[in-house]
Each structure stands twice: as structure tokens, then as C-alpha cells.
């Protein structure tokens, strides 16, 4: 347990130092929300302002984009060439993976939480009694994203290709979920495609929880995400490959 604690604290410090989480999970969503909110101000009603809309869809989207930060966290010891020191040391390999997932989850959760509360304060998002559920949802989402990212970083071949490709499905899910522009349609096919995006469901339930005071759906979503996160963590631990952790497909490395 001490070993896991040591590794987690160290990884958390590294996440804070590298600044990616603060940049992508705090500064970017705030800036983009302010910008899109301003540009589309007249297209929204007083019930939900453009700022509120974009804040609430942008936070889960940016949380999802953290998958790349988490993948890098899985790979950073290969870049620093320190990975071999972990494998030589008397520590369990599973703790290396779990510590990376835990540290990413905690830092992403903090950043997403800060962004959410800043948005609530700046743009008067109705923080009903369900605010804590939204915060919990962001924490659980961070956990899922961290586990998938670390799985990619520590256990998958072709890391560099995967890292670049992963933007495409996330971007498509974001479009389907109305992250860049809200759209409604009566076309069943398009509705079905929209429903395929996990972000669609997250956004729907977030709005339902805050504006309609409905908490049941978001509760179910949290439980599902916890299960996915635990599953992905188990998969990341099982799939940990020493060779990928040390080298992977880093430029210049020849297997």
C-alpha cells in the first residue's frame, strides 16, 4: 500500500508540474466557453444562456480529451528513459499502472471540478441540489478516461498512431453530442447516431439534473461509468507490457 501511495503522489506531482491538465481541463474550456458563448449569445434563450450551454457541454468534452494526457502519462517514463528503473525496483508492476490511473483521475477530477465551479460562478449555472452529482459524474468520467488513456500508454502497441487517431472518434462523438453547435432533429437515423455518442447521454443527464432536478438518470450513468472504469483499470493492469512501457514505438527505437 505504501508503494502505491509513493507512486501515486509522485505521479500527481508530475501531472501538476507538466501543466497539461490545467491547460486542457481548466483554461481551454473556460476560454472556449467564453468565446462560443459570446458568438452565439443571441441564439439562446434566457432559460439556458449560451454561456451555460457551452460550459456544460465543454467540460465533459475536455474531460474526455484528457485521454491523450493520460496516454502520455503512461508513456512518459519511456520518454524519460526511467521506465527500466521501475521494473528493476522491488515494486509490483500493477502498482505502476494503478498509480498512473489514480494520479490522473485525481488531477483531472480536481481540474474538471474547478472548471465546473468557476463556470457556475461566472455564468450563473443553476447549482441546484444536484451540483454534487455533476461533480461526482466528472470525477467518475475522469477515472474512466484516465484508465483508458493509461491502457493505451502502457499496454498498446503503436502508441503514437493511436494517440493521433483517438482524436477522431472523440471529435465525432462531440459533434453528435452538440458540443460545438447544438442541434435537434426528427430524423431517426441521425437521432440513433447521436445516441451512439456517450457524450450525448452525459450532456442530456447533466442538463436534466441541473435544470429539471432529475437525479436518477445521472445516478445510473455514474454507476455504469464506475463499472467501465474498474473494467478498464483491470484491463490496463492485465495488459501491461514491459516492452511497451520501456520503449513502445518511440521514434528512433528499433525492436
Amino acid at each position: 500500500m505504501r508503494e502505491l501511495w509513493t507512486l501515486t503522489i509522485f505521479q500527481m506531482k508530475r501531472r501538476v508540474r507538466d501543466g497539461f491538465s490545467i491547460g486542457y481541463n481548466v483554461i481551454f474550456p473556460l476560454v472556449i466557453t467564453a468565446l462560443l458563448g459570446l458568438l452565439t449569445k443571441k441564439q439562446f434563450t434566457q432559460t439556458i444562456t449560451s454561456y451555460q450551454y457551452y460550459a456544460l457541454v465543454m467540460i465533459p468534452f475536455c474531460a474526455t480529451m484528457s485521454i491523450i494526457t493520460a496516454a502520455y502519462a503512461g508513456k512518459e517514463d519511456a520518454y524519460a528513459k526511467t521506465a527500466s528503473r521501475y521494473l528493476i525496483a522491488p515494486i509490483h508492476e500493477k502498482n505502476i499502472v494503478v498509480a498512473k490511473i489514480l494520479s490522473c483521475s485525481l488531477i483531472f477530477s480536481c481540474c474538471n471540478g474547478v472548471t465546473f465551479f468557476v463556470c457556475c460562478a461566472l455564468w450563473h449555472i443553476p447549482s441546484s441540489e444536484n451540483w454534487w452529482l455533476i461533480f461526482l459524474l466528472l470525477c467518475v468520467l475522469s477515472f474512466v478516461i484516465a484508465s483508458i488513456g493509461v491502457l493505451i500508454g502502457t499496454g498498446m502497441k503503436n502508441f503514437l498512431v493511436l494517440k493521433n487517431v483517438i482524436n477522431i472518434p472523440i471529435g465525432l462523438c462531440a459533434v453528435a453530442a452538440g458540443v460545438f453547435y447544438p442541434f435537434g432533429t426528427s430524423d431517426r437515423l441521425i437521432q440513433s447516431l447521436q445516441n451512439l455518442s456517450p457524450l450525448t447521454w452525459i450532456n442530456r443527464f447533466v442538463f436534466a439534473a441541473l435544470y429539471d432536478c432529475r437525479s436518477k438518470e445521472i445516478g445510473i450513468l455514474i454507476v455504469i461509468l464506475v463499472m467501465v472504469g474498474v473494467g478498464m483499470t483491470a484491463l490496463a493492469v492485465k495488459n501491461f507490457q514491459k516492452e511497451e512501457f520501456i520503449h513502445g514505438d518511440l521514434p528512433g527505437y528499433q525492436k
Partner: protein
Amino acid sequence: MKNYGQTKECLFHIQNLQKSYDGKEILKGLTIPVYAGDMIGLLGPNGAGKSTMTKIIGGIEQKDAGTLLFHGKDVHKNPREFKRKLGIVPQEIALYEELSAYENIQFFASLYGLNGTKREKKIEEVLRFVGLWERRKETPAKYSGGMKRRLNIACSVVHDPEILIMDEPTVGIDPQSRNHIMNLIRSLQAAGTTVIYISHYIEEIEELCNRVIIMDHGQILVDEEKEALKKRYVEQGMDHLESIFLSITGTQLRDEVE
């Protein structure tokens, strides 16, 4: 193979170590007894299997067959206990560039269960040992090549290993730094650490080691006390290890990547 060192305790024993990649045999039943206090120079051209052997000992690679015994016990049964007593100085500089020298050692020490005052004392001791105490707050990014190499060593010996494997610890540094590192290695051995020194700089092995192992194509070709080996070859007009090494392993170029 000579049978020497019988009076010393066999600290670590590599027995019949085998490893293949894609059907190609990299280690062909390697057997090396390592005695307490030994200072072994391990020589071999590229592709000899030195790095593979080191990776297997460090637990980075899995062996196909063979046994590693530490104090007579199978390492495989309790790898963590063995790893606590093992230090490996990697050939590459394995440091976090954005952390200070102190923080680097602090973290790697904590991986070996060191903490609290004991850890802080050890960090100071080891930083003074490698001559970096005064510059402990600086990051390796600001260090010269020699200083990075010394810090690399410090991170590997902070937990007081009984057996230390050094994989080309003096690559790419100036003669002064090399001299400093050689003195560090002598001090480590004098303090009781058993050292396996891997290097392409044969003159370093000649200067430091009491025993020489020459391997090639995954096999041990020579395992002998240095003076005995030199004495054996001096009659053939070879009085330097380098000429002996070349006569044993040949002069053809080795362009394999290990």
C-alpha cells in the same frame, strides 16, 4: 573454465541461462558464479548477449530456461527480496530531467522502501559520494555529461545494493569525469559491493577488475582471473586485454543491435 574463488561465498549464481528471440538463440546456457567482493569485468562485442543477460537479471525480460540463485536461493521464488539487494546502473541516463538531483534520488530511493530520516541521510551520503551535494538543487538538464553519469550511479546505489551491475557507466564523458567514476567504483568495491562491470572500454576493465569474463554469441568464452588470463597470453605476445579480447572474439565488424 577455471574453478577459482572456492574459498569465497558464492553470492549470486547464474546457471544455464537461456533466451531466444524469434527462434534466434541470444543466450546459450550461460553459467556465471559471482563471488562476494568480486569485481567482474564483462566484455563482449555487440550482440554478445550482455544487455539481454542484464535485463533478465533485472527482471525486465523473462528467461526461457536457467536459474538465478542469490545466496543459494532461487531468485524467481522471491524476486522482490533479490531486487532490494540488486543495483543496476543503466547504460542510458535514466533520470527525470525536470526534477532536481535530490528529488531524483529521493524518488528512486523511495521505490526501495527508504523513507524518513534514513532516506534523507542516505541521499546526502550518496550525493556527497558522487560529488554532487553542492549542486543537489539543480536539475540534470543543467548538468554536464559526467555529472549526469554520476547522478545516474547515485540513483542506483542509494539503497546499498549487495550486487551492482554497471552497464557502460562511462560512455561519452571526459577523462576527468571518467577518472572520478572509476574512483567511485573502487570505493564501492572497497565498501563490500560486488560489481559486474560491463564496458567496451577494455582499459577500464583492465584497471578495475580482478576477474574477466568474455562472452560472444550468447556464450562464455573466457571466465578467468585477470592476471592469470594475461599471464596465459603473454607468451603469445599479447600483454593487453584488448589484444587478448580481439584474438578470442575476432576482428570482424559487429553491426548487430542488442
